[in-house]
């Protein structure tokens, strides 16, 4: 097939020629219903935007910002994808999702392993730095790839980071990371385990037990969770005893006063 201009008619009454090379026509060219097409065209409201000089970024017309609340536009993601496509000229369009960039996976894996090694040696703080770096790599994955890969990578790294925070005694950060893991991958028992550990660190035995039970509902035979539930119950009993002792200890003081 020879090259030809391909014109898009889009705004009511306006012609716009968008020319580029064309191979053979795609076999499926669905017939468009002119009445509905007219409805779509009627619905069109031009957006006040401007294009950056290099042509790759869309900005709001007034303030030349990517994300502008007063103009009610948010082009951050659009521009990010555009820049990604522009920087890889061999990539004509976002490819189908089965193409996974191995290099990124390797980087994430390597950094995570470094973090694991440091963690095992007991150096939780540098391990933390490694984990954060691995997480930032994992999040840089091109968005058109199968999301399962990114999900697994990010959750494993963040779960390890939660363990590092726990070892440092920073239970709130550990809890925040565990919550992230759970919201990304609910059926993974490890996420619930991390959350329970963090809660137990803060002596919140009831919530910890709930968390473990939720994790067990996804994998009833998980030994780690079962033993941990046992530990929680023991800690709970100890705390109750301490409470009782404090109460009993307090009574004679107030009675004499």
């Amino acid at each position, binding site marked *: 097939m020879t090259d030809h201009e391909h014109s898009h008619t*889009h705004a009511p009454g*306006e012609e*716009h020629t*968008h020319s*580029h090379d*064309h191979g*053979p026509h*795609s076999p*499926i*060219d*669905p017939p*468009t*219903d002119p009445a*509905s*097409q007219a409805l*779509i065209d009627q*619905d069109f*409201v*031009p*957006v006040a*935007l401007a*294009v950056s000089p290099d*042509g*790759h970024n*869309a900005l709001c017309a007034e303030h030349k910002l990517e994300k502008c609340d007063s103009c009610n536009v948010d082009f951050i*993601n*659009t*521009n990010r*994808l*555009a820049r990604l*496509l522009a920087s890889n000229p061999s990539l004509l*369009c*976002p*490819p*189908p999702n089965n193409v996974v960039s191995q290099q990124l996976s390797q980087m994430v894996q390597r950094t995570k392993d470094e973090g694991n090694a440091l963690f095992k040696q007991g150096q939780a*703080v540098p391990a933390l730095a490694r984990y*954060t770096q691995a997480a930032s790599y994992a*999040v840089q*994955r091109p*968005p*058109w*790839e199968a*999301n399962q890969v*990114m999900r697994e990578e*990010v959750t494993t790294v*963040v779960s390890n980071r939660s363990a590092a925070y726990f070892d440092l005694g*920073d239970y*709130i950060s550990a*809890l*925040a*990371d565990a*919550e*992230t893991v759970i919201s990304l991958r609910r059926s993974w028992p490890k996420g619930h385990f991390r959350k329970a550990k963090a809660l137990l*660190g*803060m*002596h*919140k035995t009831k919530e910890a037990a709930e968390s473990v039970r939720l994790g067990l509902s996804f994998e009833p035979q998980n030994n780690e969770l079962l033993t941990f539930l046992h530990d929680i119950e023991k800690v709970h009993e100890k*705390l109750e005893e*301490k*409470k009782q002792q404090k109460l009993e200890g307090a009574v004679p003081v107030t009675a004499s006063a």
Partner: protein
Amino acid sequence: MASILVPVAYLIIVFGSLFVFSYYYRKHTSTRVYEPYFPSHPERNAYITLLQQTDPPASDSLLKSALVRRAMADVQRVLRIREDKPALQALLQKGSIGDELWNSLLAAEKELEVEIMEVISEANSFVDGWGQVIFPTANEMIANEKMRAVFEHTAEAKADLEIKYEYKAKHGALPAPPTNAAKTNGLLSPSTPGPNSQPTSDAEGPGTPKSAKSKRRK
């Protein structure tokens, strides 16, 4: 006596008027415009506006990106309509809502089909065969963006959690609170015992831990 003409004329008048009425009625209903179900389509508007830009013209990668975002918005609409349809149908059968909303939904559904066809043909105009791939790509991108948002929200969630668990600790009758507050209030400072320090530590709560943690990260 009456000729055969009278009953024939009668029949012609009756059926003729029925046909005329149905013709005008059908024309009337087909052109009736329903309330739009979705308020507007900002991504579509952005895409078309970008197509029209001439000074400077939007690059191909920007146009492709805008098209993908349009596809993503369409996917979200499809999901929304799929959710709303049975619910609306149930309400309609019960009689809680009128026909208007249902007709709006159906019209929106049809418009969405046309819109999807249009996106596919636009995608094919950029790269052959892209039309088949663009919607799965859009699905993946939506999932990806959700994951990124959750991940980036972790840092903000920390402040909320601090407030939540500190408050909880303070309101509880457990003697644990001082140690809890100390642990979350920046591990660089020693534990602050005593009820006097609690009000001040509460105010500093969201502040100091963040700085302490960022120091550790760096």
